[in-house]
């Protein structure tokens, strides 16, 4: 992480990364997902972090809010980097059942050697579509931070829409969880 920071720093100095303000109000992410937020968020715009849009409240090394909008059949769920070239790719398929999509997220979040434990999986109307909500624990391998997370998702017209938020289980997850839940409730998939 320390070295990663160096790289990120270098990217900043090279002017290729930035953080944008996300104002309170309505926003459209991707083509079909719109949401409403109360209070600001920070949108991290680093090269090569697609397909998710990454937001944060406390900084990239603390909390991550991942928004996936309109992931198509056959699309990889994480950026392809040189460093992770030997790890398995997790690809979304339109025909996946809800529980398979949650398993796919487990794979995505353990790709870096972190551990993952599913705490809860329940039905949830996400963006007005039939979807699910799940909660998890994750121990981040790179810096040993113990995270808690919550995820939401649904598939509509063959495309995946999902949100994941994780933050340290001490202080930070409890601090921002309610806002994340409120954002998830506000989601509309057009």
């Amino acid at each position: 992480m320390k070295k990663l920071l160096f790289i990120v720093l270098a990217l900043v100095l090279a002017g290729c990364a930035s953080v944008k303000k996300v104002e309170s109000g309505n926003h459209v992410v991707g083509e079909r997902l719109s949401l409403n937020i109360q209070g600001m968020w920070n949108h991290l715009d680093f090269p090569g972090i697609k397909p998710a849009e990454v937001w944060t409240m406390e900084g990239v090394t603390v909390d991550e809010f991942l928004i996936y909008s309109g992931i198509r059949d056959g699309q990889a769920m994480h950026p392809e980097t040189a460093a992770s070239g030997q790890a398995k790719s997790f690809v979304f398929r339109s025909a996946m059942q809800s529980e398979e999509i949650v398993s796919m997220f487990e794979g995505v979040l353990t790709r870096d050697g972190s551990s993952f434990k599913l705490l809860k999986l329940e039905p949830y109307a996400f963006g007005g579509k039939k979807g699910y909500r799940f909660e998890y624990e994750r121990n981040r391998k790179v810096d040993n931070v113990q995270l808690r997370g919550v995820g939401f998702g649904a598939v509509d017209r063959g495309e995946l829409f999902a949100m994941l938020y994780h933050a340290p289980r001490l202080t930070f997850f409890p601090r921002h969880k309610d806002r994340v839940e409120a954002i998830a409730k506000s989601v509309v998939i057009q």
Partner: protein
Amino acid sequence: MNRRRLLFAGAAGCLGAFACRGWGQESLNYAAPQRFAKPDIASDEGGLWAMMDREEKNLRRSPLVLRDAKLKAYVQDVACRLGGAHCPDIRVHLVRTPLFNASMAPNGMMQVWTGLLLRMENEAQLAAVLGHEIGHYLQRHSVDRLRDMKAKSAFGQFLGLFGVVGAVGQLAVLASAFAYGRDHEREADRIGAVLMHQAGYDIAESARVWSNLLDETKARDGKGPELFNPLFATHPAPPERRETLSQYAEAMPGGDPGRETYAENTERFLDDWLQDEVKRGQYAESLVLLSRLIAAGKAPALVQFHRGEVYRLRGEGGDLDLALTDYRSAASAANPPAPAFRGIGLIARQRGQKAEALESFSRYLELAPEAPDSAFIKTYMSELNS
């Protein structure tokens, strides 16, 4: 004690066969060096040692360490039997990571990853890997390697030898392959075999470790196994390595595979480790591994359920049928894993077989009322009912 007797019997057999083989006397008369003193801190070895001490402190505090005193004591005991006089310097740490890896740093920090423990069929196989790593330690190969890697500007890769992830390039280190040189591997194999034999283990199991791993990594398309596993260096080439180890086994026959003790000590964790393995998403490799464990008779119902999970998640061609077969045989076992019924239910639901789906789901919730996905499964049930 039984083990002692085996040891002596083995030693006698070894000498006889060994003479016939005509190897140099030195090759099987390995005498371990004295215990190592802490190196001068101004030396390169001292620097390495101190860095590893700090890494060990981090590891000790990591949430990824498996903190089970009993299992740790068991693995420590195996390492101690192999390490003999060096036992007090070897400190075992179990790390919950689903990859085949073990390493030993020059300061005595030994990391054993749970992916390795899952793959071992008996105590002798575990001893084969630990003995090999102790062989590197006793011959201080890492110090040679440090000097070599320094010359090649590959210090980050060097640290990968010890599974040190946080210290340097993190993911790059986790994903890449690291190896000692060919001669070091040969020497560690030989020393490992002698240590195994001295401790009363059957050396034939060490050849099996490498051929099992070879089968698994071959299942991955396109690339050779050496790219994927730190312990699986191409030097010496796997067939050569297997061959040599088999020859050692012939020269030093006898010994105990230690199958029951191994099962007794590890079975409590199998379910967790299998779940971690399935999450890797390396379905082809997992299938080879799980099929092998089933054939070896290792907790068949549980492993069969997890193989069913792999088939279901891969979901290609006839995978759902194969998954169903596995789920069904797991479910018919004396003490069936509850999620096997969930698996049957999920597939039946997908296929529109209402009655079977409902029956399997309710059996699942009966056996595991507190399951994390119980609310979700209940919704599936009410949809099926309407």
